[in-house]
């Protein structure tokens, strides 16, 4: 090996998973270096991209020595053009009460629905927190893990087991229409099932997306949605402080060009400025596509691996619109509490599906679904942070030509709920998936570094053969959201990856 390995591990990318991974390793007395291409760490966890976060599990928190972060629970409100909004605070009994104000039928069904979904998400969740098994290994512990999932599913009871089997490939729209009559409630739950994904409510598999989301949000539909006190970037700041106290070295503005490979093993990284650094293990926090094609290099990959990575679906469908305001607009029939809530504009399943349809053909829908969050900027001026669902990754006309009219169409939608919005806007900024890709170096600009769908989950995440945080190159690991269990600001990928790396030392 040329050069000396001055570090035990180099982590490429200082996103939250990279930071978690670094801390876990450092607490086991490993010398860790993080190379972050941007000026600051944190990746997509910042005040620009992230609106709401799930809570960090105690397992992740304790693996890095505890996290002192205050989570503020948030209510969800589904906006209605008529002003008959649906407000949901998360605890199913409270939800039940708020739903009963507009439909006693739905309120009755809600408890059962929530209980069932919660049970299923717990079953999946028990599997999600640990490293996925590797079937090819023929090892007892791997089979045991799989057996345990099977057992957990079976222990749900015959009726639930049949229901689980029925629902696993189902679309969320069918399930919601079977249960609820209020289109606004249907639209809201459907919205949460498909947000961040490439599926419409009527696409097969959209239901498992919701279970996945519930599993990381306290197994609850609306109860696990939080903001971090002082802004979401507090999360990153806290992790960086942890890094400092654990003697993790962080190098920012250090864009990694590729891995240095010797004897078919990753031994270091080469920066874009030509600087070379060596370590015993290299861990990539980048998305799978970048990890394989840029860091590892296609000349070092087997053909079959290239095929799998090429087919890995990672095109983002969510754009971020930031409206800086000089004053808060008045939303119809909303009080101050409502303005502090997560506001969703997705009035019905059909509305979402119609938004989804053109995106399949890389076209824009001028009536997108929106998740609105009211924040304050550093000067205490209000701003609207809006997740715009089904903004295609690339458009035929080219984003630069249609960005402006797209922003106008989004504002037109909001004005139906807040008629004076136009008078309040000072500045507008739209981040398309394309922008997110180049800004944060995430292929496709996908939130989760890859679709959360049944064929890209568990042992298949990101691709079969690389599902245990190891890549196909010895010495190179992955710790990003592209690995099991995936995105959502949980840090589980980072923690599990660290364990895989430690096992390899």
């Amino acid at each position: 090996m040329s050069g000396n390995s001055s570090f035990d591990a180099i982590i490429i990318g200082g996103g939250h998973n990279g930071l978690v991974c670094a801390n876990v390793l450092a607490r086991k007395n490993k010398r860790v270096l993080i190379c972050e291409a941007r000026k600051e760490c944190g990746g997509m966890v910042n005040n620009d991209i992230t609106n709401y976060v799930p809570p960090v599990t105690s397992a992740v928190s304790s693996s890095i020595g505890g996290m002192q972060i205050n989570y503020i629970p948030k209510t969800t409100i589904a906006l209605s053009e008529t002003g008959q909004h649906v407000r949901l605070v998360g605890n199913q009994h409270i939800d039940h009460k708020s739903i009963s104000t507009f439909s006693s039928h739905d309120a009755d069904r809600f408890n059962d629905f929530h209980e069932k979904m919660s049970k299923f998400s717990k079953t999946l969740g028990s599997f999600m927190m640990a490293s996925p098994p590797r079937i090819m290994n023929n090892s007892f512990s791997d089979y045991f893990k799989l057996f345990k999932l099977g057992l957990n599913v079976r222990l749900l009871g015959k009726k639930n087991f049949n229901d689980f089997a029925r629902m696993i490939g189902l679309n969320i729209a069918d399930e919601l229409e079977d249960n609820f009559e209020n289109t606004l409630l249907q639209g809201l739950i459907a919205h949460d099932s498909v947000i961040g994904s490439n599926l419409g409510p009527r696409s097969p598999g959209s239901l498992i997306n919701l279970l996945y989301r519930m599993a990381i949000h306290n197994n609850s539909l609306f109860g696990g949605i939080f903001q971090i006190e002082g802004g979401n970037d507090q999360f990153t700041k806290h992790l960086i402080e942890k890094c400092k106290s654990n003697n993790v070295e962080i190098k920012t503005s250090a864009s990694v060009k590729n891995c240095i490979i010797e004897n078919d093993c990753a031994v270091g990284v080469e920066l874009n400025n030509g600087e070379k650094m060596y370590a015993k293990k290299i861990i990539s926090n980048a998305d799978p596509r970048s990890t394989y094609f840029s860091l590892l290099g296609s000349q070092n990959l087997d053909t079959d691996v290239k095929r799998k990575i090429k087919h890995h679906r990672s095109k983002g469908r969510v754009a971020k619109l930031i409206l800086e305001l000089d004053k808060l607009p008045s939303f119809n029939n909303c009080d101050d509490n409502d303005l502090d809530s997560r506001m969703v504009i997705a009035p019905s399943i059909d509305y979402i599906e119609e938004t989804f349809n053109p995106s399949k053909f890389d076209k824009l829908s001028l009536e997108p679904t929106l998740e609105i969050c009211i924040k304050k900027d550093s000067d205490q001026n209000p701003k609207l942070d809006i997740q715009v669902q089904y903004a295609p990754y690339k458009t035929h006309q080219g984003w630069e030509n249609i960005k402006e009219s797209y922003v106008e169409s989004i504002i037109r939608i909001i004005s139906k709920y807040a008629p004076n919005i136009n008078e309040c806007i000072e500045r507008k900024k739209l981040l398309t998936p394309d922008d997110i890709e180049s800004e944060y170096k995430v292929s496709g600009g996908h939130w989760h570094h890859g679709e959360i769908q049944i064929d890209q989950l568990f042992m298949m995440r990101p691709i079969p053969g690389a599902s245990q945080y190891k890549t196909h190159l010895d010495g190179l690991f992955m710790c990003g959201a592209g690995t099991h269990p995936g995105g959502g600001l949980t840090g589980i990928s980072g923690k599990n990856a660290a364990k895989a790396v430690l096992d390899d030392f």
Partner: protein
Amino acid sequence: MTQDLRYSALKKTPFHSRTSLASRTNKYYNWNGYTVPTEYSTTELEYTAARNGTSVMDLTPMGKYEITGDHAHQFVDYLVTRDLSKMKDNTVAYIIWCNEDGKVIDDGTIFKFSSTKFMLCCAVKIYNWLNDSAYGFDVTITDVTDTIAALAIQGPTSCSTLKKFGATDLEALKPFEMREYKIDGFDILISRTGFTGDLGYELWTDPKNAETTWDNIEIAGKELKLRPFGMYALEMTRIEAGFIQTNTDFMAAEDSLRPTRMRSPYEIGMGWLVHLNKNSYFVGKKALKKEKEENTTERCLVGLDIDGDKPAHGSVIYNSKKEDIGIVTAALWSPIMKKNIALASLKRPYGIKIKENIFAEIYHPEELEYRKIWARCKVVKRQFFNPERRNKVPADLYE
């Protein structure tokens, strides 16, 4: 008049007007979507020409792929298990390539024109594999199967035939070298390569030139025992030479449905083509390295010298305890060796450490009844026939 779809479904090669004229038996088969003769007159006669004179075979249906671009050399070296980093211009190399599990997909020959231009020839179609493998390399893969007419000119008098045809100084060409000629106004590439294990050449030219070339070679070989030969005779010669045939001696990894039927290079006697110490990565390297390190190779492909004179087609091979240890993949009574030979895939250690007390169960058909023969076999070198003239430089010339 309605067209007979049975024939139009298969393409005709540029030599078809000549091969069909030469065919006395009307026996054809489908090779990669082309119709080509299996036999022109009698296989024995064609075989004899290949071993004593010159034999001509239409090779056009062979998969031919041009690989061009700045990364062509790098890509070819990545594609195959053999170290080609030092391959010289105007040479040819015998190669195999594997999938990610280190299982063989096919074998073939690679022609290097320059570091930015190669041609790959193989029995089956592999355009998709090449294209998918090429992702990330600055190369263009072009299927030139239809745009290059190819002939195999094999046998002891093949050099003399081609010299008369117009290939000057051909005798100086070393094995696995190639040279471009201009004959009758057409560019003709001649390589000293072949599938018969004898002195022989392969000729590559424009399809427009095919018929003239065939005619002129026929005239040139008139006094040199020239004869067109078909697939059956080729099969005889290739077994004698110990050459392997995809989907006959082993299942191509991309074609086999059962994972246990796929074979690594070490299992089909192609270990010598795997260079694990190659500097760069190649497809399957990781798996092959592991197989070598952990010594998990399960089978081997060996030559068998079998008692008696009844060919052991498809025979099961047994040890002395009558336990099944393998199968014959190709068998032949070799007229030139006067030996009963076969290629067999055996379970290790048979064939590697245990070479004696191996038996073939031969079912010899005799007018609707089988005679069952229990024949003793000896494991021998797979290359049964390897005459000195094959690699001699300058090549033998005859008047």
